[in-house]
């Protein structure tokens, strides 16, 4: 198991290194001169030359790449052009919010997905199964930002019960204890619901398929023939064996979840990495965009690694073999 996980960790590091190199190459390929972009149209030729020297752009490409990789590895991501603050500080504030949102929605959407999928598999072919299928396919196909706007319309404009902006109220600093927690939960409610509903749709489809796959296996028939109760067959024999592909999907669905989070954070002004990224794109704030891209890749790789570890924990067979890819 350790060998397999070690191999996965090395692969993850390779992905992160690849992202760093890729962002560097894209930066080289992109039209325009970074020095010009930094100084603006009013710069004199002399200023441009000195700025190029200051940025190290007059050095050979290989030296630039080495310096880039070294700086990224140290976590020195430069200064934001738009705000003048260190990129590292900007992202240090943002990533906990994203992890909170994405992590909770991952947990909730798989719990809901498991419950719905299991009910569908147990009652496959029934009206209930069809209705839940229609619901989950619809949720899966709805754009996240649209669902977010709908929830804002219903809960913020019509019912006026939940806030739709940010992660805390304007008076959050004055609150202590339970009111403060309640305030945070109220702000979390809509973005979390949006991401969870979309994720749960996909998860339910997959759980249903995986459980129906397992339930045709001979050992399930044997268990039924021995007189094991249907509920126990479903939970103990079918679900347990269907969990492995579900956990692997959980790891694979992480990039999509981060993509969804970008839209949801933009809609709800959630102060996470996605929002920093979108703001930076609009401000043409390259250092922030590059760092946020790398950070997203790191978060995805870490999440993938955790999902693989979880899969190995659930299925003893996976501890000996190399993890399926």
């Amino acid at each position, binding site marked *: 198991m350790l060998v397999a996980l070690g191999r996965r960790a090395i692969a993850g590091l390779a992905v992160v290194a690849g992202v760093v190199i890729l962002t560097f190459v894209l930066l080289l390929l992109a039209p325009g001169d970074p020095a010009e972009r930094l100084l603006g149209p009013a710069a004199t030729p002399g200023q441009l030359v000195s700025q190029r020297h200051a940025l190290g752009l007059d050095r050979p490409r290989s030296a630039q790449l080495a310096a880039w990789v070294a700086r990224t590895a140290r976590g020195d991501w430069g200064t934001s052009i738009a705000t003048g603050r260190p990129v590292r500080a900007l992202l240090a504030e943002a990533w906990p919010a994203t992890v909170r949102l994405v992590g909770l929605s991952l947990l909730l959407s798989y719990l809901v997905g498991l419950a719905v999928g299991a009910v569908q598999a147990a009652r496959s072919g029934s009206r209930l199964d069809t209705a839940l299928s229609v619901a989950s396919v619809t949720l899966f196909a709805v754009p996240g930002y649209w669902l977010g706007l709908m929830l804002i319309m219903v809960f913020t404009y019509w019912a006026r019960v939940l806030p739709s902006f940010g992660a805390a109220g304007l008076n959050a600093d004055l609150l202590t204890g339970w009111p403060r927690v309640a305030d945070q939960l109220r702000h979390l409610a809509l973005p979390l619901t949006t991401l969870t509903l979309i994720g749960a749709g996909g998860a339910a489809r997959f759980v249903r398929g995986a459980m129906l796959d397992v339930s045709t296996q001979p050992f399930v028939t044997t268990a039924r023939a021995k007189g094991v109760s249907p509920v126990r067959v479903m939970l103990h024999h079918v679900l347990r064996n269907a969990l492995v592909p579900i956990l692997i999907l959980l790891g694979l669905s992480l990039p999509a979840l981060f993509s969804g989070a970008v839209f949801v954070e933009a809609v709800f002004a959630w102060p996470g990495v996605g929002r920093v990224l979108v703001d930076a794109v609009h401000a043409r704030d390259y250092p922030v965009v590059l760092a*946020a*891209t790398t950070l997203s890749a790191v978060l995805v790789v870490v999440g993938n690694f955790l999902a693989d570890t979880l899969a190995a924990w659930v299925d003893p067979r996976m501890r000996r073999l190399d993890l399926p890819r």
Partner: protein
Amino acid sequence: MRALLRDRRAAFGVYVLATMAVLATAAPLVTTASPAAQHDVVTTRFLRPLAIDRERVLHPLGTDRFGRDVWTRLLYGARISLSVSALAVLLSVVLGVSVGAAAGFTGYGLGTVLLGVTDFALALPRVVLLLLLASLWRPSTTLVILVLGLTGWMTIARLVYGEVRALAVRPFVEGALALGARRSRVLWRHILPNAMTPVIVAAALGVGNAILLEAGLSFLGVGVQPPTASWGWSPARYSATPCATGWRRTAGDGDPVRAPVTPPTGAALPRRPRARLRM
């Protein structure tokens, strides 16, 4: 096609998609207004659905904040959204099939490298990559097509790789090689045609995904640029005007209509009896 229409879910998807495509193509016939035209903005903006403005023009879905007819923009937006996603998926399919076939049918060295690249690309959050590219280059329709195509080929490559590997050991491939057929011909004529079923499914799903992403990019303001209508555009503008005109958010640009369209179409395809192996 008949088998496809017999499946009720698939038929639903096909009909909705076909209706959208026909309406988009025939947009100038279905509506007389122009998608970008602005008349008297003050009197015609934010009209409710089915409202008739002062010039006695009916707006079936109302107007947006510039007084533009939402129904017209929905139709012209369909042109952009459908064609952009179709072209992007075409690019993905070409790339994915090439990479997958090359990885599956060549020796270890190249195959391993190509698979490594595929896995690497799969691990990147797609929207983040899209935003990165959109920030480095000027947003345009071509860029959206390229970017969506270049970030969507990996699943197809994986599928084709698997199929090609499985088919390469089948007796009819061995037979073709024994008859003296060139490897490229065997791949092109014997293996790839048999590997296409999952590709068609993945492409159908990919179109739905690309439509969502294109709309999403437009929503964030880095997709197809205004005043061109796209399906993602309008909700973005409404979200920027949080006033008492809440209903208009629902009018959007018809997102709920198109959302479930493509997946059922794709899901139905593999159920068709698999075409007999062509040898």
